[in-house]
């Protein structure tokens, strides 16, 4: 093993520890932020006792949950019941691995350690745990795996509420994954690559994809709400109908693991939106951040990336405490009858316009993005006109009566 390879392995391990540690911290504070923001929106104060501004509330909650009694329902399928939280938690944590969170950091060391021998690194370290060539496909694959945790939790609990929650989540997540994947095809067409680092680089070259691919962004935003099981799509846990849905039977740390997985998913979805559509760690209106890597650049871009991501987290929280829940058939209707056809049609539109722009000889850059943005504004207007009441989605219809009622005298 060469010293350089050893150096890379060491840096990789350091990055894994730092990123997952930071993710846990962030998740803890998103829980706190959710409680505070929801309280403010309801003219309350929220948790403000533990630590400054209540920031240590997450620690207190974690400790409390560890000390609580673990319950095992009598009808539970024991092995799967214990395994399910891990199945939900691990994919939620692993998705973070491919998201680039800052510009490359210059690292240089040359040490000789006992047992390991000479270990060295010299150059720009990419600020991503693993820049996989499969990029966001990896994230889509892992979020599909996350469904197993929820479904198995629902089934193995041996409770009808949990089972219904699990079933609903499988139906919902699978439906919306298709629309999410379809909306990302447009991103793939424009960037020519699925690697997130390459997508960020492409956005630096032209415009942020939120302008060039607005419809994709809208579709992905809606599906992200559905994928993270958050209001208005929290069908798997609907408090009013299913008590707590798939985790109704869980207590103590097992419940907390579901909670952490849910918020880690929320953070990943936000980070993914920031990366795919808002330029990732890119600083707008300057090319300073793309020059030779320095520590300062890495820090500034890291802050910018976190700002973008946490803004999306705020949007998630904001929407959750504003909008009421969909009915289940409306969720399915929106997913299959609206988002999926829209995403497919949009892929065609984008493919055609990219082909046309290439034929017209427009170079990939800011002007290219501006033309696509103009196109998107037109489509956005049409879509939102269509989406409004009475055209595609409708409320209760006066003329509609179920067959049973119609046949009765």
């Amino acid at each position, binding site marked *: 093993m060469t010293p350089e390879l050893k150096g890379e392995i060491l840096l990789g391990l350091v990055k894994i520890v730092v990123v997952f540690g930071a993710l846990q911290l962030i998740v803890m504070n998103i829980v706190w932020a959710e409680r505070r*923001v929801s309280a*403010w*929106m*309801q*003219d*309350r*104060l929220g948790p403000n006792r533990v630590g400054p501004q209540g920031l240590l509330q997450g620690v207190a909650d974690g400790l409390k949950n560890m000390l609580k009694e673990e319950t095992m329902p009598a009808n539970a399928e024991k092995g799967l019941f214990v395994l399910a939280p891990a199945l939900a938690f691990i994919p939620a944590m692993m998705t973070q691995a491919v998201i680039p969170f800052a510009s490359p950091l210059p690292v240089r060391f040359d040490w000789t350690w006992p047992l390991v021998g000479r270990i060295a690194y010299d150059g720009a370290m990419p600020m991503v745990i693993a820049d996989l060539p499969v990029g966001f496909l990896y994230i889509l694959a892992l979020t599909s795996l996350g469904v197993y945790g929820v479904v198995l939790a629902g089934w193995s609990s041996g409770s009808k509420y949990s089972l219904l929650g699990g079933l609903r989540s499988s139906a919902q997540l699978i439906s919306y994954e298709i629309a999410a994947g379809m909306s990302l095809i447009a991103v793939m067409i424009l960037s020519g690559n699925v690697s997130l680092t390459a997508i960020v680089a492409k956005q630096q070259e032209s415009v942020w994809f939120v302008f060039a691919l607005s419809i994709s962004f809208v579709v992905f935003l809606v599906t992200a709400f559905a994928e993270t099981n958050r209001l208005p799509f929290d069908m798997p846990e609907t408090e009013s109908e299913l008590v707590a849905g798939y985790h109704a039977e869980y207590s103590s740390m097992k419940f907390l693991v579901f909670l952490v997985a849910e918020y880690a998913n929320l953070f990943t979805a936000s980070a993914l939106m920031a990366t795919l559509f808002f330029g990732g760690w890119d600083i707008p209106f300057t090319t300073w951040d793309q020059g030779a890597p320095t520590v300062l650049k890495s820090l500034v871009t890291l802050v910018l990336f976190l700002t973008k991501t946490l803004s999306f987290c705020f949007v998630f929280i*904001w*929407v959750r*405490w*504003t*909008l009421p829940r969909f009915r289940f058939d409306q969720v399915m209707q929106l997913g299959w009858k609206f988002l999926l056809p829209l995403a497919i049609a949009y892929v065609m539109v984008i493919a055609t316009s990219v082909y046309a722009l290439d034929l017209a000889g427009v170079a990939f850059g800011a002007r290219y993005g501006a033309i696509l943005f103009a196109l998107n504004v037109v489509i956005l207007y049409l879509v*939102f006109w269509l*989406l*409004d*009441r*009475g055209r595609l*989605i409708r409320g209760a219809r*006066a003329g509609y009566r179920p067959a049973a009622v119609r046949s009765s005298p």
Partner: protein
Amino acid sequence: MTIGVKTVHRPDHEVSYLRATVKGMALTFSHLFRPKVTMQYPEQTSAPDWTISNRWRGTHRMLTDEQGRSKCVACGLCPQICPANCIKLVPGEDEEGNRYPLIYEIDEFRCVFCGYCQEVCPEEAIHVGVHYENAEYDRDRFVYDLERLCAQTHPVSTLWDPSDPKGE
């Protein structure tokens, strides 16, 4: 028999989902910055727009006369009327024939805070209090004896007055 369904045709701007959504989002966002109504209880025990009602029925207090003796004449009406049976009264009589309580105990855990004892008392001795901070370290401490009832200093309830039902 069928149910007649009336269809209401409202204009677009009233039934629009999107406009309603945007309006709702704006409303919740504006609430982020509004003054909060929470009273931070242990540090803050009163707020400008909050007072405890003077008809509040909390733990009891026995009123005393000028010599510091309880006003109770041990007539036995309060244990008689108490629906929770939480008042223990053993009457005694001094050499001048004045009745007084030898034992007067109220079990605050059994008490349902109906206020009948205060209502029925001919001497206006026993009262329910405008008071809610009752925490103790021991269950036994919740049986208040006569000495403790006399030692309470909190304001007493005015109860509900039938001639002034809204407390005006």
